[in-house]
């Protein structure tokens, strides 16, 4: 098998299982690719080649001994640096966790190991997942493989860029307001934010606990489904995890059929404020779906107008509390411990030095929103909006099977372009945020390049809670139709690096 790095995960797994290629060869090919291109892309914060090769060797040993293996055994993966992995640096993109090596594995990592997926290393991200460009990483920005002067999205820009740069065929992201879907959108890859509680958060360094959700990232819908199935399911370590059977996402991705499916176009997510090329590709995708036998109708979700405002109260509020523990007392950075400063000063100096400006901005915002006297007006009000948004979704899902929208209003913007304008940066998540507030699942998949800039456009599919299989049913069908049309996957048009 040639060009190992350009193969899909399912193809690689099959080749490894049939001994056409060894897991070690596959892993080595990806490690070589990382060595060759990651100086330019900076998708990875940390690569443990030895550990990856050891994991691959163990898979080859299992293949040799005839042990039955999972459908992704031996396939390499990039892990977003927000998930705890025993003994490996885990920084969440922040200076404040520099040097910390968790003594435990997150549930996602445990499940990846159980699936014999080879973890190459940790991918870059906006500090504590706060951002839409990966520019807020304390360790430097990640570059979009389609155009190295552009952002790869965020917060999971490292995971998406690793896929688009062929450094890994699989990656894990986490999505609090679009951190899986928006990077997928701007890098021409596929990402799914599962239903809240569908994948365990245990071991994910929390940004906003009621919104956070780990999920799968890959270059095809089927690979995404295979990874989804590997990490999903009830976990007694996460109280908010759902104790029910995981929808059969693999079967749905394989069926890839929208005949008779009712697809709702969210009126509020599109039109003004959306880049022309984004709107154009979106309209074409809707036509394709119609041509495949889906019924496309417009639905209205009037409360979505308030989603961004509510999100930027709830997220900072929870984050201000979740990030309190980074005080220099137990792990990570400690500043000012010179024998003269008291504990409060050391805490304060550590946080001053360890957190970047966006993190500080949100901690202050959240601290303010939770303050007595302001709680009802801000946090309380935001929770009411959240309820209204959930109602809008419920009403819409009474009419349709899935909802759709562009994933992001624009294609990848230039590095530095929105760094000094937080509001403009926040607006990039306007279409992805309602999903997190309602706790439902959503997918982004590529639907072409915007004519004006030649950059990937993402298509978002949203499904009711615990109906994640519908994402794959519709996404798989759209992907198949587009691949037929183009004769290849969009990602194959990505530039050589």
């Amino acid at each position: 098998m040639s060009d190992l790095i350009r193969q899909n995960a399912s193809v690689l797994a099959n080749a490894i299982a049939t001994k056409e290629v060894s897991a070690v060869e596959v892993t080595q090919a990806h490690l070589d690719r990382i060595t060759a291109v990651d100086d330019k892309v900076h998708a990875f914060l940390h690569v443990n080649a030895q550990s990856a090769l050891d994991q691959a060797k163990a898979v080859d040993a299992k293949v040799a001994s005839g042990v039955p293996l999972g459908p992704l055994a031996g396939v390499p993966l990039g892990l977003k640096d927000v998930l705890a992995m025993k003994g490996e640096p885990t920084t969440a993109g922040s200076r404040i966790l520099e040097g910390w090596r968790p003594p435990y594995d997150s549930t996602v990592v445990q499940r990846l190991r159980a699936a014999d997926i080879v973890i190459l290393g940790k991918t870059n991200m906006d500090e504590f997942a706060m951002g839409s460009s990966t520019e807020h990483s304390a360790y430097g920005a990640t570059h979009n493989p389609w155009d190295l002067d552009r952002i790869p999205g965020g917060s999971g820009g490292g995971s998406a860029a690793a896929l688009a740069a062929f450094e890994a065929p699989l990656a894990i992201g986490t999505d609090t307001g679009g951190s899986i879907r928006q990077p997928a959108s701007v890098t021409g890859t596929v990402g799914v934010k599962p239903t809240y509680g569908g994948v365990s958060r245990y071991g994910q360094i929390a940004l906003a606990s009621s919104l956070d959700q780990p999920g799968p990232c890959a270059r095809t819908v089927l690979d995404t489904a295979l990874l989804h199935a590997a990490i999903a399911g009830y976990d007694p370590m996460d109280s908010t995890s759902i104790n029910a059977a995981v929808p059969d996402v693999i079967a749905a991705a394989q069926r890839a059929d929208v005949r008779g499916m009712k697809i709702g176009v969210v009126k509020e997510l599109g039109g003004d404020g959306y880049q022309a090329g984004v709107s154009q590709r979106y309209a074409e995708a809707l036509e394709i779906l119609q041509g495949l036998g889906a019924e496309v109708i417009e639905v209205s979700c009037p409360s979505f107008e308030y989603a961004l405002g509510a999100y930027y109260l709830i997220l900072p509020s929870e984050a201000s509390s979740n990030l309190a523990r980074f005080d220099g007392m137990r792990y990570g950075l400690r500043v000012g411990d010179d024998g003269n400063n008291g504990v409060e000063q050391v805490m304060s100096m550590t946080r001053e030095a360890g957190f970047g400006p966006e993190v500080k901005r949100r901690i202050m915002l959240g601290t303010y929103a939770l303050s007595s006297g302001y709680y009802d007006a801000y946090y309380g009000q935001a929770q009411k909006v959240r309820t209204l948004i959930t109602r809008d979704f419920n009403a819409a899902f009474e009419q349709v099977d899935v909802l759709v929208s562009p994933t992001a209003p624009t294609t990848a913007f230039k590095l530095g372009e929105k760094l000094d304008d937080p509001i403009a940066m926040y607006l990039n998540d306007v279409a992805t945020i309602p999903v997190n507030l309602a706790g439902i699942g959503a997918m982004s998949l590529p639907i072409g390049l915007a004519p004006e800039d030649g950059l990937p456009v993402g298509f978002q599919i949203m499904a009711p809670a615990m109906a994640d299989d519908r994402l794959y049913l519709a996404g798989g069908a759209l992907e198949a139709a587009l691949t037929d049309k183009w004769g290849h996957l969009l990602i194959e048009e990505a530039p050589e690096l």
Partner: protein
Amino acid sequence: MTTTSHGDVYIPFEEAMSRYEPIIGIETHVELGTNSKMWCGCSTDFGSDANTQVCPVCLGLPGSMPVVNRVAVESTIRIGLALNCNIAQWCRFARKNYFYPDMPKDYQISQYDEPLCYDGYLDVTVDTPDGPQVFRVEIERVHMEEDTGKLTHTGGATGRIHGAEYSLVDYNRAGIPLIEIVTKTVIGTGSLAPEVAKAYVKELRDVMRALGVSDVRMEEGSMRCDVNLSLNKPGDGWGTRSETKNVNSLRSVERAVRSEIERQASVLDNGGRVIQETRHFHEDTGRSTSGRSKEQAEDYRYFPEPDLVPVAPSLDWVEELRAGLPEMPSVKRARLKEEWNINDFELASLANSGALDLVEATIAIGVDSVAARKWWTGELLRVANEQGVELEALRVAPQDIQQVEALITSGALNDKLARQVFEGILASEGTVEEIIATRGLAVVSDDGALLAAIDEALAAAPDVAEKILSGKIQAAGAVVGAVMKATKGQADAAKVRALLLERLGVSE
């Protein structure tokens, strides 16, 4: 009037009570005796090496998440039911945010405006010169939370964080399930306020013990009280309250209330204003010192804990727990009073000395009720008072009393020797048998040896024999005493007396 080194001035209690009425409120923290912590599987054993009973969850490591301990919820519901509370059908945990190094997450998971149990009461009885008087202490809420780690401040004079050279944190205690029981304001106690406060805490402790939900050892901190108190002139509105923390024994509860009444009365007498503040109680002086002022209340930024799902106990479960509640201490006292045929005063002294359960346990294994009460409220209580510890803290177990009593009945021990056996047990000399053996405490029952001693005693006091023979049998006491002395108390006095009279051919 007395003045302490901290500048606080006190007036005598009686004088204070002649001008002011106290209003008290008590917040009690109880560590639940669950095997594992509130959010993780770590052990709750007390006294292990520092930071050996910890895991990512109770250390609050990045990414870790709490999971509610169902047994802790069950215990809290049972406590609520025992305190006549309503049980919430749906309630949430909340985060109480503040920075402190003993708190791994820099927030405490607690409950805020949705406690699991609310609106209950506990009746307590206080002895007065007019007989027992019952006060109803209303319970505002019982809620669940987690304990913090334990800080040790090294260097510096005060042992407090300010001025310390460095501090060590032991997180073994972090995440141990804690419940907080908050009373409503207790009014109308008058000068009985200190006694009511103590009786409430004691009754609460007995309820916890009866439920088996905690070892409620105040000296180990598994039960801790904060006492709120304000004074006002009769007819006036309520005064400003202070909160006295660190009140860690029953005696301290009483003393803390008394001391704070004396202090606030002095402040008010002098036209001063009582400051809303936290005060720290000191066992050694029986006084409190001013802590942090609460005039500018800390903002804990409470919000619902998003890492946990709501607690929603089903009605069936609550009713099942209600049906399984044990006999409450007050009910039990009434029953025992009847069974043992004792009066209010005896019952109160048994209860107040902490002997009630011990006596009951002793009787339950077959010891006569009079003998059981005699040992616990006599010799053993004397020793406990002498050592300044609770009766139950003594090393003596009901089984020891059972063994000793059996030996007395069989004639192998007498009361005096029995006391020596207990002395041995208290000194950790071993089991009853071991102490009898090593101390050589067997009753001399060999008639020959006793007769020889009697003969010796008679020979030493010939006039006594004359008196007895002439009918003054009471004179026998002197000879018996001499024989007991000669045998170092290891004889049965009644038997010596019988042998003496037989020897002299005298019958009673």
